[in-house]
């Protein structure tokens, strides 16, 4: 990759992405291959927002490489609560660790933090901004299930605030993929993202209803619509209900449709779908480990 940090998926090239996915596939096929390779290395985890699975996934990946983690812990128990800036926090923890992983509620937080440190810094989510490691595991899952070219992908739910959606859309624009964005009008993709996708020459269509495109899709990526996005409970129930899928919804889908979700889900995918061949979301979650192992290996000096 061109950068020393992984802040967004926006600047990843097709070659960057394929390099990481290929490496992840090798690790997946032979999980012991890198055991002990990064013995003694430490990864600093700075999660300013609660997260269970992303954090555990990084921790697992690092330990499988023979390294260990130092964890800032929850914001409530740290000096952040006493008013320390993010810039100061990363500069202190940089002294303990060989690489940093940062999740923060503010957009641009990882980019700013990266300007204060010399060690590699990985963005694990910055508000409504980006979440590039999620994107890499999403692409890995998509490639395994359906390939990454000549593909029609539907991305549905909260497209406005969904950082996984923004990152995925940027990365998919490197491939021969038709992107369909399905959401209520109030939760459409930010105009900035649409502008960028057009600049990159991506094929982008926006829809208000899934049934307009469902039968053409190879992949449907579902995201959660959160209650706090709506001032009114009834309105939330009514709108969110339209973007939930169950077995009846899938009657119009092709038998090969792959359904993905960054998890955790609440009620946007009916559990009855879990046992069908459509469901790829648990596999998707498992793929976080080999993909993050491949990334960390690269950032910690993999080819050496």
């Amino acid at each position, binding site marked *: 990759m061109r950068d020393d940090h992984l802040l967004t998926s926006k600047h990843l090239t097709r070659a960057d992405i394929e390099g990481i996915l290929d490496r992840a596939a090798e690790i997946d096929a032979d999980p012991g291959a890198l055991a002990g390779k990064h013995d003694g290395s430490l990864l600093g985890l700075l999660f300013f927002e609660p997260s269970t699975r992303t954090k555990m996934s990084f921790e697992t990946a690092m330990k499988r490489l023979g390294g260990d983690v130092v964890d800032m812990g929850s914001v409530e128990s740290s000096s952040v609560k006493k008013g320390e800036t993010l810039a100061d926090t990363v500069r202190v923890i940089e002294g303990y660790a060989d690489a940093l992983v940062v999740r923060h509620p503010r957009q641009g937080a990882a980019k700013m933090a990266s300007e204060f440190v010399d060690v590699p810094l990985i963005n694990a989510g910055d508000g409504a901004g980006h979440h590039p490691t999620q994107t890499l595991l999403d692409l890995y899952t998509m490639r395994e299930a359906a390939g990454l070219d000549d593909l029609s992908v539907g991305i549905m739910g909260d497209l406005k605030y969904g950082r996984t959606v923004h990152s995925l859309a940027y990365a998919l624009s490197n491939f021969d993929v038709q992107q369909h964005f399905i959401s209520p009008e109030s939760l459409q993709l930010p105009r900035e993202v649409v*502008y960028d996708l057009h600049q990159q020459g991506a094929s982008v269509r926006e829809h208000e209803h899934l049934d307009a495109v469902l039968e053409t899709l190879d992949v449907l990526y579902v995201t959660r619509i959160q209650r706090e996005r709506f001032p009114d409970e009834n309105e939330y129930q009514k709108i969110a209900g339209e973007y939930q899928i169950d077995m009846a919804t899938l009657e119009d889908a092709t038998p090969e449709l792959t359904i993905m979700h960054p998890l955790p889900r609440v009620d946007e995918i009916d559990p009855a779908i879990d046992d069908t061949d459509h469901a790829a979301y648990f596999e998707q979650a498992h793929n976080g480990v080999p993909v993050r192992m491949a990334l960390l290996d690269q950032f910690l000096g993999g080819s050496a």
Partner: protein
Amino acid sequence: MSSDDHELRVSKIRNGTVIDHVRGGQALNVLAILGIDGTQNEQVSIGMNVPSDRLARKDIVKVEDRELSQEEVDVISLIAPDATINIVRDYDVTSKHRVERPCQVEGVLTCPNTTCITTEDEPVTSRFEVLDDGVRCTYCGTIVRDGIADLIGSR
């Protein structure tokens, strides 16, 4: 009539900067960029909507005892792309140049996205990439096309 005649409408300054050929109506925004609100005893003369050869109507801002930083000139270029900056010393114009549209501007503007890290209490200077038709926050990606002057904020 030459533009020199019009410059007489506002008094000559001894030392300082004359910002000429500002688009009509933007003079107060130029003052905002310079952080001039009259409370610091700054000596300023303004001509607004003066007929101009080059622009239909132009504004002129003359600031006594002040030379501008590059950051300030960069932001002025966004709202007054035709402006000229004249440095005056002892009643003589010692240098005169057109503003140039920069690739990016630092400081001066504040990101309108309240969830952007640059609006937090962090040791970071705002930075905007200059687009053909607006500016874009380097940190959060927010694009502003209209109302760039409204981003000139609390500094």
